[in-house]
């Protein structure tokens, strides 16, 4: 008998245990029911559901499945749980807490595209996640070859071609597309690279259907999404929200702001700053991989933006001139203003953000440019204060995490 579909926003997180230990297979099946394998209409159902990638790209998942399924060869599925964005925690949380949801989705996707092999990719530092996935795999009886692979930590490792290179034992750097992984990926075979959260949603679409999936969210962006919320809120953490939810509602759900908030960073380091407390959480409005930071008014947005720009410059794969030079120039330029050392060269910074966009082998420079552009816009008054007086009212306080940058 089929279990009743989740009726509230808690879809992926419905079964999370209070003690944060992983939900085992029996408990998982008792909650959600079984996922039938061998469904010939799964791709059509996923397409009808409107599910889009939750790793930041928001590409229609059904289209991706169909593209891989249409290729000749021996397809492979790669679960992207690398989560290289420092402020993002949701993919690792899923893997640790409800691994079978992710694995169900991977198995169903493999079945749909005709793959017999699934690789679960985790960052090297993700020890707890590796344990959880390995333990979960031991409980399962899918007719698949599973591999758990550790790849280097780093911001660009999550880009699909960089990830595939890392899995093949090559440096974790992006390569030029085309060819796209769906046509030529791991071992030269058609490869479905899918974010862990996307697969978790797929596991539920496969059970409860497209109409159920669309019963929450918006018509353009159906379903729920996980958000990693941090900053000046009472209960930072991973939340599941309907797409289209306002930032203010999310903050209320997290116990409200702990101090005055001057801005939100929506979409993480490839996203943008906004002053709008009612900013909608949708892919179109820049939700990206679901990172939201409530930035305290007492901190300095100029210095923080310079820190993140410096981090992004350091995370460049170093292959493309405009990225290497452009991101260094943007970081250096913001740092100069932050430290009150510059005359006003904001025009030059704006020109550079345009010059680096769409000029690299991947979207790293585009994301960095978007972030810097939003900082120039939202913190415009503070930038002016730094230029005139060397500082604004904010204190130099690290709010956003960035490996290797002080």
């Amino acid at each position, binding site marked *: 008998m089929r279990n009743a579909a989740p009726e509230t926003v808690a879809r992926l997180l419905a079964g999370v245990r209070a003690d944060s230990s992983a939900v085992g297979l029996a408990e998982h099946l008792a909650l959600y029911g079984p996922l039938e394998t061998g469904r010939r209409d799964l791709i059509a159902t996923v397409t009808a559901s409107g599910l889009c990638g939750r790793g930041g790209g928001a590409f229609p998942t059904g289209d*991706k499945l169909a*593209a891989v399924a249409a290729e000749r060869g021996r397809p492979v599925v790669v679960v992207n749980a690398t989560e290289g964005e420092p402020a993002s925690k949701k993919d690792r949380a899923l893997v640790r807490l409800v691994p079978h949801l992710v694995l169900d989705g991977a198995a169903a996707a493999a079945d749909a595209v005709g793959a017999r092999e699934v690789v679960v990719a985790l960052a090297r530092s993700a020890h707890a996640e590796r344990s959880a996935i390995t333990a979960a795999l031991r409980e399962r009886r899918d007719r698949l070859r599973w591999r758990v692979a550790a790849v280097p930590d780093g911001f660009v490792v999550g*880009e*699909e071609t960089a990830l595939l290179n890392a899995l093949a034992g090559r440096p974790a750097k992006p390569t030029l597309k*085309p060819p796209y992984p769906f046509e030529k990926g791991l071992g030269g075979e058609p490869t479905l690279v899918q974010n862990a959260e996307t697969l978790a949603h797929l596991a539920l679409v496969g059970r409860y259907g497209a109409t159920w999936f669309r019963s929450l969210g918006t018509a353009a962006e159906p379903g729920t999404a996980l958000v990693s919320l941090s900053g000046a809120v009472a209960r930072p953490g991973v939340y599941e929200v309907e797409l289209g939810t306002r930032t203010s509602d999310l903050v209320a759900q997290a116990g409200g702001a702990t101090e005055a908030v001057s801005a939100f960073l929506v979409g993480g380091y490839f996203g943008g700053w906004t002053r709008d407390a009612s900013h909608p959480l949708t892919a179109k409005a820049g939700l990206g991989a679901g990172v939201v930071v409530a930035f305290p008014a007492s901190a300095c947005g100029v210095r923080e933006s310079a820190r993140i720009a410096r981090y992004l410059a350091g995370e460049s794969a170093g*292959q*493309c*001139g405009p990225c290497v*030079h452009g991101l260094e120039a943007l970081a250096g330029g913001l740092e100069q203003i932050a430290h009150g050392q510059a005359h006003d060269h904001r025009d030059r910074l704006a020109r550079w953000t345009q010059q680096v966009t769409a000029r690299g082998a991947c979207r790293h420079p585009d994301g960095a440019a978007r972030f810097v552009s939003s900082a120039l816009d939202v913190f415009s008054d503070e930038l002016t204060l730094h230029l005139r007086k060397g500082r604004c009212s904010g204190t130099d306080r690290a709010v956003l995490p960035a490996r290797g940058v002080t």
Partner: protein
Amino acid sequence: MKKRLRIDPIACDGHGLCAELFPEWIALDDWGYPIIDERPVPSALEGHARRAIRECPKLALRLQPARSNIKSST
């Protein structure tokens, strides 16, 4: 058939020969790397495009037939 002039940004080293040979279509950014017009190359200019492709020391340029791609990200 419409063709676009495409660059491999990984192979490109910023020599800048292409911008000298085909200034109608290629400019250089603040760091000496080519910014290429994205429109299809008019047939009257295709000879210049081919010369730039031939002379690039890194073989970083090519003419790509315009086709519709399925593009996936991440």
